[in-house]
């Protein structure tokens, strides 16, 4: 029969609750899988075998005592390294935080612990979540389990690759411009960016505070929804957290899985199909085949126009680096992390500059300089201020579209996973990976990526974008699309073997 690691999180939770499996058995199976394949995939920066098994034993004891347990109790999860975990190394994949052990937990980690999900470890990412390929990790590159010569997306490439390679049934990501959805698309996994403010940012290492949103990574929509409900909800420690009920995403995923979308209107964004912004042909073909399936389930397609989406990318690259340059000012070599060049003679300012030069990688430096430029005297209104106004226009495009339709659909990313090194020479080419995901971040609404098919043997994702606090519709449409697939796309990834490990040494860069 199927291995433990092939089961979905929902199946594992039921097996644990009903006594067919123990959490220790389940957690051990994933830890053993990490031992077997992470030498190839390199998704984890840190693995916490003892901590994960300790939580698993607690769950098993609770089951034995007949205690009521949460819906994912005992199911292990991997956490992106940008989320702080008390007593467990957290680096945001940066050298400037190498060896740092946080003295507190992020709110979403507190909630994961309260719900008794064993934490397997911390996943690799682009440094401070800046990137679309995980090539900007200061430690090592994570490979795409589908083709070890290709990128796993980014910034959350580690979380997506861990789930795609079945080293974890669930993972946490964060999405500022597409860092959950784009890795999901290129690794054949499901990823959801919730409504901004729906999930607490307390304990997320800040990149762009008006955009950063944590969310679930999984193999299907239902598993993602279950994790979404574990981590979501108002948090008084985050003043941008929304004090409103969590959208019923689990119920919506179950409804979608019945395969009925009658009465659901889906908007197809006209501007994504045209000109320079069009996706590559193989991606378009897989996406359009997915749209046909959605229509067969009863959905109605409506073409909508969102003219301001064309400005989303430059708007993002003003707002995100501006906020990043401010947020990353805290890495001054005084209170935590690296300190370089402190010879007892140099001044604080000199030590600070040397520390930041030694501790930050190239993409982080580029964005700090860009943000410093955009916020400098005389430019702040023309750049940051202007970008925030264009953001309003993008938001208005969404709001207008949602007067006509229930959700918008698009390919998640314009191209399949590219080969290592293909886009690091020209940062702008890298930024294009997030062309279709960024508008949602500008608006603040929810967006999910669900696997829709293959192009050149590599996974393609379909994005569903919903109205603010309408996360449920995005899960419903994603689950409905999955119901048309005989096997989850995530379950058709090629097996990773020792053979592939050898080829990685040649294919990797």
């Amino acid at each position, binding site marked *: 029969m199927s291995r433990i690691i092939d089961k979905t999180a929902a199946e594992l939770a039921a097996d644990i609750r009903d006594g067919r499996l123990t959490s220790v058995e389940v957690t051990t199976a994933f830890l053993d899988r990490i031992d077997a394949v992470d030498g190839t995939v390199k998704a984890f920066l840190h693995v916490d075998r003892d901590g994960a098994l300790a939580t698993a034993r607690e769950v098993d004891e609770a089951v034995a005592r007949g205690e009521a347990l949460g819906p994912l109790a005992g199911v292990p999860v991997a956490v992106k390294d940008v989320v702080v975990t008390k007593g467990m190394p957290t680096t945001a994949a940066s050298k400037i935080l190498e060896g740092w*052990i*946080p*003295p*507190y937990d992020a709110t979403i980690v507190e909630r994961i612990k309260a719900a008794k999900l064993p934490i397997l470890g911390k996943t690799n990412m682009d440094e401070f979540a800046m990137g679309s390929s995980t090539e900007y990790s200061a430690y090592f590159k994570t490979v795409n389990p589908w083709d070890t010569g290709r990128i796993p997306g980014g910034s959350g490439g580690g979380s997506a690759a861990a789930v795609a390679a079945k080293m974890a049934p669930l993972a946490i990501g964060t999405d500022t411009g597409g860092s959950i959805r784009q890795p999901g698309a290129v690794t054949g996994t499901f990823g959801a960016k919730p*409504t*901004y*403010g729906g999930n607490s940012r307390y304990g997320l290492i800040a990149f762009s505070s*008006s955009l950063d949103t944590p969310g679930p990574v999984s193999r299907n929509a239902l598993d993602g929804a279950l994790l979404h409900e574990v981590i979501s909800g108002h948090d*008084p420690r985050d003043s*941008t957290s*929304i004090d*409103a009920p969590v959208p019923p995403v689990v119920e919506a995923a179950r409804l979608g899985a019945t395969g009925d979308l009658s009465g659901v209107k889906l908007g197809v964004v006209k501007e994504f199909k045209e000109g320079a912004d069009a996706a590559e042909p193989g991606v378009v073909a897989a996406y359009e085949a997915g749209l046909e399936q959605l229509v067969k389930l009863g959905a109605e397609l409506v073409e909508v126009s969102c003219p301001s989406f064309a*400005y989303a*990318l*430059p*708007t993002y690259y*003003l707002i995100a680096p501006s906020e990043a*340059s401010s947020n990353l*000012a805290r890495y001054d070599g*005084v*209170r*935590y992390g690296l300190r370089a060049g*402190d010879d*007892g*003679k*140099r*001044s*604080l*300012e*000199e030590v*600070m*500059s040397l520390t*930041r*030069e030694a501790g930050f990688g*190239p993409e982080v*430096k*580029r964005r*700090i*300089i*860009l943000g*410093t*430029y955009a916020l*400098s005297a005389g430019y702040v209104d*023309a*750049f940051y201020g*202007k*970008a*925030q*106004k264009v*953001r*309003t*226009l993008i*938001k208005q495009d969404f709001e207008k579209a949602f007067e006509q339709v229930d959700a918008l659909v698009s390919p998640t990313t314009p191209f399949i996973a590219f080969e290592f090194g293909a886009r690091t020479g020209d*940062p*702008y080419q890298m*930024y294009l990976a997030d062309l279709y995901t960024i508008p949602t971040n500008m608006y*603040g*609404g929810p967006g999910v990526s669900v696997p829709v098919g293959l192009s050149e043997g590599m996974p393609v994702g379909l994005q569903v974008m919903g109205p*603010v*606090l309408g996360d449920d519709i995005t899960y419903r449409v994603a689950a409905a699309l999955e119901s048309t697939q005989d096997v989850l796309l995530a379950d058709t990834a090629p097996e990773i073997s020792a053979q592939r490990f050898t080829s990685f040494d040649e294919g990797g860069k």
Partner: protein
Amino acid sequence: MSTISREEVAHLARLARLEVTDEELDAFAGQLDVILQSMKTLAEVDTDGVQPTSHAVPLVNVFREDQPQPSLPRDAALAGGPDTFEDRFRVPRILDEEA
């Protein structure tokens, strides 16, 4: 025409306390230029009378009760410091004199 010079990048790096290398300056000036050119397209958007957006759901005046709450214990706060001395963070000299 380039929108940002190598000297400007060096100045910005100094403002941001980044001791960048010559190679980095060469690379960044060209790369930032491409990005800034793309940003210039925003100038063509008419935003007269448009209010700025910073949140999906506009929130104003988020307050909490002014109740004392436990804070991070001192030892835990100091534990991550690169150099601590007698319950304090030790810092390099901040005034322009010999140490």
